[in-house]
């Protein structure tokens, strides 16, 4: 009986998370266009619905009804599965992420996390890295040189930033002594001064940069930068398969925002009178906004510069950070 209850609960949570995050990802595309437009003194989408709000629905209809083209020389099964990998991994990564403090509904305590595993951070980062198979397979199976270039860039990019991500979170983990995101969150109870960002500022900056690389956002959007590689790995995609890549990207963005908020910015702990859930929403919104903001403001860098900065600057800094943390802990 107990087993069934857990199963049902997990299923319901999973469905809710996927639905809500997919919805938020869709909405994020709208917000992105609006924010970018405002920052460039434009209006953005205005014609569908009030202030262009229904643009979202229009885009959805377009994506769903567009013809799904598979190019002639593409490796068909791989070409078709690649976007699914990208989207699935983005959502699977969310299984171990707590979003809100636990609350009671109808006398039933709900933990807003699908599965509280003790290696949550490792799991999330691992699954997110598996997500690179989406662009890689898509690029290699498309029979298109732009796609291939995009895939190659995706791989060099991942090889570069993955080291920085791992090493940068190592220092906070050493202090906390746990990989569970709930433990990490609980470590920072007690107001802004207890946030890890003050104790580990360098790790915070490194992790944030790696987050930008992981989500392929400007200034590290080398793998689908239009001016250089058309649309990178997604050049040959159309319709809903392209949409899956897109949703995956935005879902990744939300995951990274949640991760940074939990790891460095006090997670879902309440602050003064603001309840934890609201704090979390505020932080995640801020991070999503930051992603868009940075895209509007900063130029993007070349792939070689990206590797250079990862291997020659960020990685040594991360190692130094770990060493210092280690000495301080001892």
């Amino acid at each position, binding site marked *: 009986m107990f087993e069934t209850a857990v199963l049902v609960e997990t299923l319901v949570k999973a469905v809710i998370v996927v639905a809500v995050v997919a919805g938020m990802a869709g909405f994020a595309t709208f917000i992105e266009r609006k924010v970018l437009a405002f920052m460039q003194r434009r209006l953005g989408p*205005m014609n569908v619905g009030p202030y262009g709000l229904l643009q979202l629905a229009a885009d959805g209809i377009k994506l769903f009804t567009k013809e799904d083209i598979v190019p002639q020389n593409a490796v068909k099964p791989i070409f078709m599965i690649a976007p699914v990998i990208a989207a699935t991994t983005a959502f699977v990564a969310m299984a171990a992420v707590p979003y809100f403090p636990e609350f009671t509904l109808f006398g039933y305590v709900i933990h807003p996390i699908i599965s509280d595993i003790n290696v949550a951070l490792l799991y999330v980062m691992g699954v997110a890295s598996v997500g690179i198979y989406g662009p890689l397979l898509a690029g290699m199976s498309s029979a298109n040189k732009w796609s291939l270039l995009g895939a190659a860039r995706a791989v060099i990019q991942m090889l570069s930033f993955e080291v920085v991500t791992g090493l940068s979170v190592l220092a906070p983990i050493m202090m906390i002594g746990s990989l569970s995101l709930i433990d990490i969150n609980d470590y920072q109870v007690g107001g802004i001064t207890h946030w890890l960002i003050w104790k580990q500022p360098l790790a915070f900056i490194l992790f944030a940069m790696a987050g930008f690389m992981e989500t392929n956002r400007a200034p590290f959007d080398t793998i689908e930068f239009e001016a250089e590689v058309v649309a990178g790995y997604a050049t040959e995609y159309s319709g809903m398969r392209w949409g899956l890549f897109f949703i995956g990207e935005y879902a990744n963005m939300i995951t990274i925002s949640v991760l940074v908020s939990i790891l460095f910015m006090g997670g879902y702990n309440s602050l003064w009178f603001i309840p934890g859930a609201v704090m979390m929403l505020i932080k995640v919104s801020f991070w999503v906004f930051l992603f868009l903001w940075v895209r509007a403001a900063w130029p993007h860098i070349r792939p070689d510069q990206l590797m250079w900065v990862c291997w020659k600057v960020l990685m040594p800094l991360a190692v130094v950070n770990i060493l210092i943390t280690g000495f301080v802990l001892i």
Partner: protein
Amino acid sequence: MELKDFKQRNISPGYIFFEGEKAPETGWQAFQKVVKRTLKGELFVGLWIVFREMIRFDIHTIQYPAQKMEMSPRYRAIHRLLRLFESGSERCIGCGLCEKICISNCIRMDTHIDEKSRKVVSEYSINFGRCIFCGYCAEVCPELAIVHGVEYENASEQRAHFGLKADMLTPLDTFRANEQKEFPGFGALSDNADEAVKQTPLAY
């Protein structure tokens, strides 16, 4: 004048030349450059500028089909043939100057002598596939008969649209409704034309 000055004679005196940053020569200089650029905060200036524009909300979008751009009178779009304000008859006297001056050779006209022994223009057309909207025709016209309009929405199904005499001539009912405005743009007299005119010296 030196060669450099000669080559740059189109540049006003206040122009500031920027030779570019000196490339670092040694590894130490390169390192200094990296550190300086990293800690300078230029990136945050960039962030602030776009954020400032967002909160200022000084939007420059024109929502096109609903709002249209106000064109300057000197804008040179599809031509118009005007009528005389006094009589309502066509201003064009069929002098043929516009046909002659048109560098794309795209104006064609046909004239005849009517029963009152006056020269009238029977046909007048501009091939807008070839017109380059240089404005010479409007400028050369002694009667200010052919002028440039400001309508820029020229999509059409036929090449010949817009370019026939009937398309360009102010329709009579528009004219009667007093809606033909004097043309202030290309080739028209300026507001202070009277002051600029010198009296013809009749003394000699």
